[in-house]
């Protein structure tokens, strides 16, 4: 029976999982120590998905960049395209964790959200002095 090896990326256990195929169908999945491992391999066979994390420049922030992530995993092959889309984005301080930076990135239904709080730089837009 043909088989394929996977390393589960869901948690640091890094389970080595083997999927046995009969024809194109998965016959058996072994080696995972939890349900998430099996789910991961099943997805990996049909349509692999990955998380995405990167940064976006912030205007008027007390930090130059805000770190961001895709709110859900994205199709693996879309990751480079999505990173390019996020690279064009700009945020303005204040930014809070969870703030949507890009809605519905590449029409996937997944948002790009902030993963860090960035305050407004002191002395900005406080009026005339």
């Amino acid at each position, binding site marked *: 029976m043909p088989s394929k090896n*996977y*390393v*589960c*990326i*869901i*948690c*640091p*256990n*890094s389970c*080595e999982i083997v999927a046995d195929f009969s024809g194109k169908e998965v016959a058996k999945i072994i080696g995972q120590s939890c349900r998430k491992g099996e789910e991961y391999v099943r997805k990996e066979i049909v349509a692999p998905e*990955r*998380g995405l*994390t*990167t*940064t976006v*420049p912030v205007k008027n922030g007390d*930090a*130059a*960049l805000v*770190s961001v*992530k895709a709110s859900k995993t994205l199709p*693996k092959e879309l*990751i*480079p395209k999505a*990173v390019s889309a996020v690279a064009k984005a700009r945020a303005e301080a204040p930014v809070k*964790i969870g703030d949507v930076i890009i809605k519905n990135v590449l029409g996937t239904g997944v948002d790009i959200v902030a*993963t*860090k*709080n960035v305050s407004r730089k002191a002395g900005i837009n406080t009026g005339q002095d």
Partner: protein
Amino acid sequence: MSEMIVKSVDVAVVGGGPAGLSAALSAKKNGAKNVLIIERGESLGGILNQCIHEGFGIDSFGEALTGPEYMQRFIDQVESERIPYMRNSMVLRVSKDRKIIVSSKEGLYEITAGSIVLCMGCRERTRGQICTPGTRPAGVYTAGAAQNYINLRGYRIGERVVILGSGDIGLIMARRLTLEGAKVLAVAEIMPYSSGLPRNMAQCLYDYEIPLFLSHTVVEIHGKKRVEAVTIAQVDERFKPLKGTEKKFECDTILLSVGLIPENELTRDAGIMIDETTGGAVVDESLQTSVAGIYACGNALHVHDVVDYVSLEAEKAGKSAAKNAAGRQQEKGTIKAKPGEGVRYVLPHKVSGHADVKFSLRVSSPERNVKLIVTDGERVIKTFMKTRVNPAEMIQLPLKKSEISGSREIIIKLQNAK
């Protein structure tokens, strides 16, 4: 000479990274009224500020958070508990009588503490420490420095990159640089196995088809002003480069991901006993060092693989520190715990036998189908079966009070299961 600002607290926490935040929160929760965090950097959170990738908190929160999200959960609690913290404040000295000298914008502080928790974390091994041959051009960074430049400052550090060493930060940066448009040509690892977690090999190297050269080391760095190329070669069992196996990569940037060292200058200066294998303090089960009232945890104690375990360990140290500050007696460790064959180190170094203990350890090399055997020197106390062990992963073995009480010593060794 200007006078020092004198202060006194129940528990002083040196370092405001994941260990420090957790230790301070736990000290407060366990009754210490006056807790103070002293942080060298601009903000709390330590290295998590720059670890923008996901995978933190799976154990503690059941979700894969990014570093900044994980740290913010603890910072929010520190704020709501109103635990004071000093930022941009450098601890210059910790002494046996639990006095801390701090340099800050306001001047020098002398802080007397009922207990001190050492949470200084670790730093990266640098080029000087691994003696890479060749010229000294610009473009050689530690992986963590590169991570800081890219993730916090938005700098573009190079176009063509070779990574020496396969530590987790190096692997994470291989992916990050690739997504940022750089070409990562190779990762060279001197050992016959990766020093990073297998999941990071999978999602950071294999996903992007970045070649990994095991049993390879750098034989020359080329370039005068800027890195122009690097030559790597295969090594023999004694890590000597083999002639004729050289490969040269034209590149402008080299990252080093060759290990982490617990930061313990303060600890050594205080006369606290150090374990030369871990690079951290010798501790008992309450995480107390050889000096009464001074505790150590997190990456300053030993380098961890997962931050969740840092937080848990720090919780324990914070609790012990609170107990000590309140004058409550604690169990003294009299039973020595030692690594046996195949095990690099075992923590804590001493246990009392009057409480359940979770030992932390690392193995010397990757193995399959093994047992970790806990003995009292003669008799087998307990055996743990493992299908895979990896030096990249910290292993924890829980033992019950009843299993260890009465032992003269504890030795943990690795053995083939067959």
